[in-house]
């Protein structure tokens, strides 16, 4: 009976200090199927899968693999049992080559590292699945999509029978996501099973065979894909109906706030950097920036935030030349920056919510005087922000790295928007967020727009750009291919521009 399933989890419970992350969860995976694991931010998806992959130990519950009971004391034991996981935050050694990362800990390699042989094996294996990776490249040189492929190949190299993907599409462009789905369909055709963690309903409908829904640590339902629709899934996931997306009012543009004149900058690696970018954003305007990763999106954001020097050109804010001022001076000009890397550059992982929230505001009278900080006031200030944006925290002083992705993002936004900024630079603001949280973030951005902020929104999600932006600019190889009013920005056209076409050419064709 149980042997019908490749893997079965029974009554799994996992408690973290202050949170019940998994509450008596049951989950089954069949051979050769794609099981979607659906749930909002913080519903315990990653925790449950970390238990299955041997990273965490459950407080209670049992795991069966092919009908046999197992207890994993380490990820190694799970891998040996055929279970591999690609984590939300990739577990890779940046300074190592792809091949070194893949053979790490593998039993294949004996005492000597035979780089040449391993590289060939990896190339063959990855070609077989249509996963392109260059085994000799160093991880830090790779784009996120490439790094993800490395993680998948790593598990294939170990002969995983079950591959767990934790929100794989959160970091991918739509095209890349489609390619990934192709790969996993190929894997199931070979009898391997997949667990796909997601909170995107359309993905469930597109690839999954079955779906298990988690809500607040409880498995509320498991359904066959054919027998559900998006509306029902949303209700199961959120406990309420689909949220009506926030509507954008027609733009009320004021004066020019942000102006770039022929801005040119270098990049860190082989990427092109920025070449000769000129643009203006007015009060109450959202300028969306589209482009494939590695074409200068991140560099553009960093340039405006004062984190990357210009080698040529100028940046003006409210008419004042702020070219190559320090980040602090830029902040004082009223620029808020929501970076793509929340834990790396957005928040301080080991500090609590209070300290993270006052990072920009502590100089303000009331919170601080001279070198001193008024902790009581700071606590009140933080508590108010947290309530405003609805962050779920277990305590104000608990290190923020313990928060789930969605909560981290809300916390960051709360801080960046608290000071009523003149200019907002938001990079992938809803990456990894569930529907409700994304909607909340969009609402916050639109609110800032009505308040007259000039917003630069960088996103890989065309739908998001079309929904929020007033104008859309497309970056290709560090150049701005053109800026279109959103009414003229058809997805097709933008897509071609992302590949290097001039707006004129597109219209002609």
């Amino acid at each position, binding site marked *: 009976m149980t042997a019908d399933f490749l893997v079965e989890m029974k009554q799994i419970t996992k408690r973290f200090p202050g949170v019940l992350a998994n509450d008596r969860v049951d989950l089954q995976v069949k051979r050769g199927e794609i099981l979607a694991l659906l749930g909002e931010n913080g519903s315990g998806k990653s925790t449950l899968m970390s238990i299955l*992959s041997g*990273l*965490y130990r459950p407080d209670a519950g049992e795991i069966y693999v092919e009908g046999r009971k197992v207890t994993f004391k*380490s*990820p*190694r*034991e799970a*891998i*040996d049992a055929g279970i591999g*996981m690609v*984590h939300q*935050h990739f*577990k*890779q*050694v*940046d*300074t*190592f080559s792809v091949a*070194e*990362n893949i*053979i*790490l*800990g*593998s039993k294949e*390699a*004996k*005492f*000597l*590292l035979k780089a040449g042989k391993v590289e060939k094996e990896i190339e063959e294996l990855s070609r077989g699945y249509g996963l392109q990776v260059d085994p000799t490249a160093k991880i*830090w040189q790779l784009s996120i999509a490439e790094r993800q492929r490395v993680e998948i190949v*790593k598990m294939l190299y170990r002969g995983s029978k079950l591959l767990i993907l934790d929100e794989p599409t959160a970091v991918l462009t739509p095209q890349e996501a489609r390619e990934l789905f192709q790969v996993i369909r190929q894997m199931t055709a070979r009898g391997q099973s997949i667990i796909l963690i997601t909170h995107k309903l359309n993905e469930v409908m597109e690839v999954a065979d079955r779906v298990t829904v988690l809500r607040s640590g409880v498995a509320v339902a498991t359904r066959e894909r054919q027998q559900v629709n998006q509306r029902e899934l949303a209700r199961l996931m959120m406990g309420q109906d689909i949220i009506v997306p926030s509507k954008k009012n027609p733009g009320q543009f004021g004066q020019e706030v942000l102006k770039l004149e022929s801005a040119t900058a270098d990049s860190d690696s082989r990427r092109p950097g920025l070449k000769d970018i000129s643009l203006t954003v007015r009060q109450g305007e959202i300028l969306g920036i589209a482009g494939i990763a590695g074409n200068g999106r991140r560099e553009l954001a960093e340039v405006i935030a004062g984190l990357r020097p210009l080698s040529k050109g100028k940046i003006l804010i409210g008419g004042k030349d702020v070219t190559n001022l320090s980040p602090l001076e830029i902040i004082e000009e009223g620029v808020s920056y929501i970076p793509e890397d929340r834990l790396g550059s957005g928040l301080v992982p080991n500090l609590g919510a209070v300290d993270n929230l006052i990072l920009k505001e502590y100089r303000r009278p009331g919170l601080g005087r001279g070198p001193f900080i008024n902790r009581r006031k700071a606590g009140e200030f933080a508590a108010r922000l947290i309530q405003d944006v609805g962050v779920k925290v277990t305590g104000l002083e608990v290190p923020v*790295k*313990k928060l789930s992705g969605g909560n981290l993002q809300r916390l960051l936004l709360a801080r960046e928007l608290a000071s009523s900024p003149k200019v907002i630079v938001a990079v992938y603001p809803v990456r990894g967020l569930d529907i409700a949280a994304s909607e909340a973030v969009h609402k916050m951005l639109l609110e800032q727009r009505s308040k007259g902020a000039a917003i630069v929104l960088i996103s890989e999600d065309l739908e998001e750009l079309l929904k929020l932006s007033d104008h859309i600019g497309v970056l290709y190889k560090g150049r701005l291919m053109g800026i279109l009013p959103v009414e003229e920005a058809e997805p097709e056209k933008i897509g071609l521009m992302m590949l290097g076409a001039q707006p004129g050419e597109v219209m002609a064709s």
Partner: protein
Amino acid sequence: MTQEFLITILATAITAGTPILYAALGELLAERCGILNLGVEGMMLVGAVTGFVFAVRSNDPWVGVLAAMLGGGALALVHAFLTVTLQANQVVSGLALTLFGTGLSGFIGKPYIGIPVENAFKPVTLGFLSDIPVLGPVFFHHDPLVYVTYILVPVLWFFIYYTRPGLHLRAVGENPAAADSLGVSVYRVRYLYVTLGGMLAGVGGAYLSLAYAPTWLENMTAGRGWIAVALVIFAIWNPLRAMLGSYIFGGIDALGFRAQAMGVMIPSFFLKMLPYIFTILVLIMVTRKAMANRVGAPGALGLPYDREER
């Protein structure tokens, strides 16, 4: 005359550099797996005194070396327990170890001050190798512990970069979570290399008390442990560069001695400062270059690892 002088200086550079080289290799191993051990000075002193005591008692310097390894290793094991298992602050634990080692060695060595070792390490020649002009007298008129490093350094270098356990060692130091997720036991690797590192530091100490200046003096390492810690950075965590750095330090050390002996009118405290000043200068230069080339400290150096932490 000048050639002879040069040969003596170079040969002394090697003897003076060898104790630091041992200690630096040990520290390099520990730091490669992510554990900073500032107890090198303490471990060297304990190595020096245990080595000396056991060599005197057994009349066999090799027994002394073995004892020094055990002494240094035992101290390092304490550090591993505190920093790996208990996740204590590595700087604090290391400093405590140095203080403790200094005191302990003084205490153990008290009755041995001024006693000579009968059977200290002596230079031995290696047949035709020692007869090569210039190179022979510079490299092959040394005691066996120097020859051991000639083998140890390239072996370690090869081990770190070209073997599977070396890969695991580096991975644990760079990103323990990645290593752990693939079944490399972070705890085991860290315990192993921290302890091995302590053993090497112990040998470095024993080299001082059994070969370089065969006697026991309180605090006889005179800051060499700290130089070793600094050299690891100069070496960019590469054993071959650690060897070079140790010899450069040894050379300047030797030069200072000679200058004094020849009656050069430079204040002696300045000469003693020289190797340290030089080390600092080199460090500044090298670190700046390393930063530009994206090579640097192991990514997880100084950080404890806890699997369920995120």
